[in-house]
């Protein structure tokens, strides 16, 4: 095993990690603000992927416009879910919200199978994106580079938003103490809606990337990204955006490296290794890597 091989594996891990990170951020944001796990988050990724297909092939729009519309689609679906499922659940026990979002996830998946058929479909980005190029020992495609750059760009934009803008301050305030925030005159409903919109928009873009990278989408594809983003968010500390980003990259790297560095026999134990390490991390750091103990607040 030479350094070139390891470098390639690291690169693959980073690419996968960026996608997980994007999905995990949205998930963590939503948890941070309403303390509810949104299990349908993964399915928003699926919707994003199918929306990309629709905009690109059926409507034939140019790529940047497609990305923009997919972002909008993600946002709208997020707002819809918030209205229907999360707003009525505020104040209910935590598990209730989790189960409700699970119901939405099942609904979306079955609607997908019913209307779109369960057959996997392909889609491909414009050709110029598929070109392979070498960076030292590591081979990339343009699409991979775009994924990493977009992910980094979005993450920086998000952190700036949360730290500098009024909306961001409102979001942080609401996450910290919803009652005091209300007393301060913050419009809670709007803030929560905005959080959902942003988080889901990111998930939609992640769907676009997922489809573009792997070339194949199907109505059940959201299950795995959803689960992994849950795990990534928890690793990094639920409710913390930098934590989600860190968690996403760690998960992506762990997956690729487990398969890449261990002998092939262990490839089938990959999930067991990843979750085993997850449990160990959690035992050692019960609130995740960057998490604060949010349960004790307010």
């Amino acid at each position, binding site marked *: 095993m030479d350094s070139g091989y390891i470098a*390639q594996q690291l690169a693959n891990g980073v690419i996968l990690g960026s996608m997980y990170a994007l999905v995990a951020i949205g998930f963590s944001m939503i948890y941070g603000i309403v303390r509810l796990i949104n299990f349908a988050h993964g399915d928003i990724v699926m919707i994003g992927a199918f929306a990309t297909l629709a905009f690109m092939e059926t409507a034939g729009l140019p790529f940047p416009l497609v990305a923009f519309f997919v972002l909008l689609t993600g946002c709208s679906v997020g707002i819809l879910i918030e209205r229907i499922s999360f707003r009525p659940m505020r104040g209910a026990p935590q598990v209730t919200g989790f189960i409700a979002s699970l119901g939405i996830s099942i609904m979306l998946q079955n609607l997908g199978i019913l209307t779109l058929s*369960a057959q996997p479909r392909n889609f491909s980005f414009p050709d110029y994106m598929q070109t392979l190029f070498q960076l030292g020992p590591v*081979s990339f495609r343009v699409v991979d580079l775009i994924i990493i750059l977009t992910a980094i760009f979005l993450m920086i934009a998000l952190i700036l938003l949360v730290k500098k803008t009024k909306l961001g301050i409102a979001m942080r305030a609401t996450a910290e103490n919803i009652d005091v925030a209300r007393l301060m005159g913050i419009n809670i409903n709007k803030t929560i809606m905005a959080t959902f919109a942003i988080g889901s928009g990111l998930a939609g873009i992640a769907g676009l990337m*997922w489809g573009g990278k792997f070339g*194949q989408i199907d109505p059940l594809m959201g299950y795995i990204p959803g689960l992994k983003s849950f795990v990534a968010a928890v690793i990094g500390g639920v409710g913390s955006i930098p934590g989600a980003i860190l968690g996403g990259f760690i998960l992506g790297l762990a*997956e690729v490296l487990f398969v890449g560095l261990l002998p092939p026999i262990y*490839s*089938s134990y990959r999930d067991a290794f990843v979750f085993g390490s997850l449990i160990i991390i959690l035992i050692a750091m019960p609130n995740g890597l960057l998490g604060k103990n949010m349960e004790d607040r307010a």
Partner: protein
Amino acid sequence: MKKCLLIIALVFMSITLAAPCFSAEPIKIGALYSLTGGMSSIDTPSLRGAQLAVKIINQNGGLLDGRMIELLSVDAKTDQKAAAIGAKKLLSKGVIAGIGHSDPSFVLPSAPLFQKKGIPFVTSGATLPTLPMMIGDCMFMVPFGDDDQSFAIADYSFKSLGVKNVAVWTDNSMDFTKTLSRFYKQRAQELGMKIVLEDFFMMGDKDFSAQIARLKNTSPKPDAVFISSIPNEAGLTTKQIRESGLTLPIVSGDGFDTELIVTVPGKELANDVYFSTHTYREDPRPEVIKFVEDYRKEYGVAPENAFAPLGYDAVALIADAITRANSAEPKALKESLAKTMGFKAVTGEISYTRPSGVPVKGVSIISVKKGKYSVEEIWFPTVK
């Protein structure tokens, strides 16, 4: 007077219209497929094929004395519990035969229930060769066994592609793929090929960069890579292998029989791929051409994968057995099925001559070159 005649005419018409309902009791066949959940992309085409067969047979006057076939379809939901419940439900409705399932892990909870009641169960898509032995004489298979299809592609790799060193990738999460690999390796070693690398992945995996990197670094260099996977990973593996610059032939079994190996990598990269499958794609036999045409007409798309004609064949096989036995009683049907010889199914000729109960069928070896499918040869097992 006129009114009287009118009434008499109407009564006559209604009697003639109702008459078939009086004389013909429908023949009930149960269909157990997973129409929701992970297996739905494979099972739904099978059900559609089966429904098409029923429709055509009924249109042509039904079976025996004008009895119509009624296909009762139950969703197995990619869940063993639902499969078992579904089987019991169908049996309680008095079906004279059952068809279904494309994976042995769903046949195993359902078929023994049929066996217990002496009702034949014909699987359209499960290829595990030990199924009839495990379940009993009511178990019938429409497709060939995994042993045959693996031997076929192994023979082809050695004789036609000249492969001496081969890498084997196996999906370790499914019994079908593990069985396929086991038989391929067995035949490969018998022929004198050397297995230079064994790698694994799981169903649902999207990224194969680690396996590809290992493939590149193996020595001696493999002349081909055998990938044992189901359709969901077929396109992905092909695409990623070709994109990494590797041009070695990719061989596989019927898991690669899907449009995805061309659509996902794109026509340029879908090159030098060979797989063994049920004999129907690009096949000029009249049964095949008629089937594809009828399927297109009925559903508006070409058959999605090989499981569509397999479902069709399951119903057609039962219909043929009923006609030969001249009865729709389960016991007579079972004996008639066991005697099937040379039945011209869409997916090849079916004959049950072996003690294992696995049909002796031809296996198509299909090549994909720059996105075009073509039949390279048809392999036959040396009949035992």
